[in-house]
């Protein structure tokens, strides 16, 4: 296949792994370096992704003894070559985002962002990155956005789906204000601070159930962002729901719109139905795809969403969401691949276009 014919793809959700706390120490102040070393705080992997769980790394991508996604060579071979990807947006999920102490959280997030810049963005020009922020302290998070945003290879701000408060609350608005100012979308990625049970009816027994329940909190956060008026307050901000699935969005749209029609007076600053906000302001990364596996049904799903702008191509590498060489699910209409893998990402992440010029 010639270069012109090859479909162009932007992978909007891959993960690079922090191999150990040691790699972050050079990016910390003396105080924090001393704290992490002397207290022996060595492993702050998220409970949302236990590194050895099958989900954390597809078996054929796993490298013995290495944290999933921690090798640049592996990312080159598995993602850029293996999945025929031209550009990829990476996120390094690590303990700063969930730390109980907002200051420890901020120190870790800054270190991760610097490490990602030095070890990934500098070494691989096809990579872009998300800015990790300590949502535990939105002022510090906004500062971190300002600090990192100067480097235009950072293309979005990343928050986890489950936090200390609902994401629509005005408490978090400094984060949105900073992101909008820099033209960065907010990526809300699967994962939890584990401040509350993973479901509204308490703690399930298994990791499998925690992960299966993730769309619950995504829909709650979407409802929170809408109800608190965030979309109106920040008219230029896009929210990307990352690793939430896709097909759950239509039942959400139907239900939320039905409810809004009747009790919208509770939130009169919301002047259009939730379904309209989703179509215009919300994006969903493709994997893990929870939609139908027949072409005409996928087309109907997109019709029901009411827009083909909403889905963004993603592999969720190295998480084990699909098998084989193509993250595009079986039955996905071939005619839509270019739309979700190229046009939609470029329209969502304003900074990506710069690299094409």
């Amino acid at each position, binding site marked *: 296949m010639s270069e012109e014919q090859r479909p162009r793809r932007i992978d909007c959700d891959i993960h690079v792994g922090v191999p150990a706390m040691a790699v972050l120490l050079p990016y910390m102040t003396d105080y924090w370096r001393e704290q992490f070393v002397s207290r022996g705080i060595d492993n702050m992997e998220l409970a949302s992704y236990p590194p050895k769980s099958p989900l954390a790394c597809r078996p054929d991508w796993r490298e013995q003894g290495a944290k999933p996604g921690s090798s640049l060579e592996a990312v080159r071979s598995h993602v850029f070559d293996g999945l025929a990807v031209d550009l990829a947006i990476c996120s390094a999920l690590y303990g700063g985002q969930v730390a109980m102490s907002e200051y420890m959280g901020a120190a870790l997030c800054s270190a991760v962002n610097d490490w990602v810049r030095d070890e990934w963005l500098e070494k691989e020009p096809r990579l872009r990155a998300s800015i990790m922020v300590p949502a535990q302290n939105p002022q510090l998070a906004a500062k971190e956005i300002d600090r990192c945003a100067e480097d235009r290879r950072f293309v979005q701000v990343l928050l986890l789906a489950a936090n200390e408060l609902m994401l629509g609350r005005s408490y978090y608005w400094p984060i949105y204000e900073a992101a909008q100012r820099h033209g960065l979308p907010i990526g809300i990625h699967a994962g939890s*601070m584990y401040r509350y*049970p993973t479901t509204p*009816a308490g703690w399930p027994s*298994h990791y499998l159930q925690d992960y299966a329940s993730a769309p619950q909190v995504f829909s709650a956060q979407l409802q929170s962002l809408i109800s608190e008026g965030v979309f109106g307050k920040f008219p230029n901000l896009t929210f990307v729901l990352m690793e939430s699935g896709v097909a759950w969005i239509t039942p959400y749209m139907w239900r939320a719109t039905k*409810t809004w029609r009747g009790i919208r007076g509770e939130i009169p600053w919301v002047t259009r139905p939730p379904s309209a906000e989703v179509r215009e302001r919300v994006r969903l990364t493709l994997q893990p795809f929870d939609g139908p596996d027949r072409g005409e049904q996928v087309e109907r799903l997109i019709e029901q969403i009411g827009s083909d702008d909403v889905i963004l191509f993603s592999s969720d590498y190295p998480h084990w969401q699909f098998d084989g060489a193509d993250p595009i699910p079986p039955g996905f209409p071939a005619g839509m691949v270019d739309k979700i893998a190229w046009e939609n990402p470029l329209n969502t992440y304003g900074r990506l276009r710069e690299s094409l010029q």
Partner: protein
Amino acid sequence: MTSTTLERTTAPAAVGAGIVDCDIHPSPRQGGASLKPYMPRQWHDHMDQYGDPHNGPYASVYGFPRYMPGTARRDAWPENGGPPGSDLDLMRSQHLDRNNVALGILEPLGFGTTARNVEYGAVMCAAINEWQIDEFVDREPRLRASIVVPQEDSAASVAEINRRGPDRSYAQIELPSLTLEPLGRRRYWPIFEAAASFGLPIGIHVGGPTGARTASGWPSYYNEEHLSLVATMQTHLTSLVLEGVCEHFPDLRFIMIEGGIAWSISLRRRLDRLWRTMGNETPHVRRPPSEYMAESFYFSTQPVEEPETPAALTEIFEQVGWDRVLYASDYPHWDYDDPNYAFRGALPDAQANRVMRDNALGLYRLPHGARAPGEA
């Protein structure tokens, strides 16, 4: 398109023979005071002085103030006083007669199942169970009661099920969805064991007082709380399958009430995929979750999803399974679904019969020798 008129969409066949409504809410005319005759004397003062402490900021109302008084239709307040759902005659004229309801399942809410004090809860559950029979079922043969239990105390729950179980006026066991733990957890299994022994299905109805409504804490608005109830349904379905309840109690049936239905389709795919990759964490789950879902679960329609293209609703029913879907009205609550107009896509006649009547008749425990509605 401007819609100024309504199209009646329910197949007339189902209406002609009577429909089954899986969710009708009765209320005691004077609140808890109406239950005192059914409670041992020593609990009367307890009720007056302490009541049923809710897990929320107010002494006597929900933390999320409702948008309609009493969570109810404005036209459902009886003229002679009392809350909506407390007047059988109004229930008859407004709903049972008007909509040709041949069988209605009562789902009392908020008495006993929500109590943090499970001793008090057990007393309240026993009272509301007797009260349903005296005030509704004995006076109206189209209605059946639910056995409510203090579900956080499984021993007391089993005792209550054993007490009511032989009486076929009770069609199901009713559990709230905001339980302390996901319902698949072992603490609830004795309830399932007892239910299975009487051939009673378990109706899980949205609501209850427990805990933060999301994994990210408490939302601000009633509309958010209303949405979070869907998540409780997803939690219990996931839990009952993955903790092994469906595997262990293959004949037990669960009815997901007032959570809508469309969400179950993508959840089913998600669970199947995760079971394939991480099923080794739950080795007791021997088959793909979708198979358990197709056998163990039913979904009541209300509040039914309203897709922008009405045909999409028919597709949703199709994908959930025409044998899994049950009509529910939620009378007298504000988000009531009218049987004649709620389903905006035309349901094919044969399928409408199943949704509006036949699926429920094959599911609930009905009196011996009782004729099914529409049967000669």
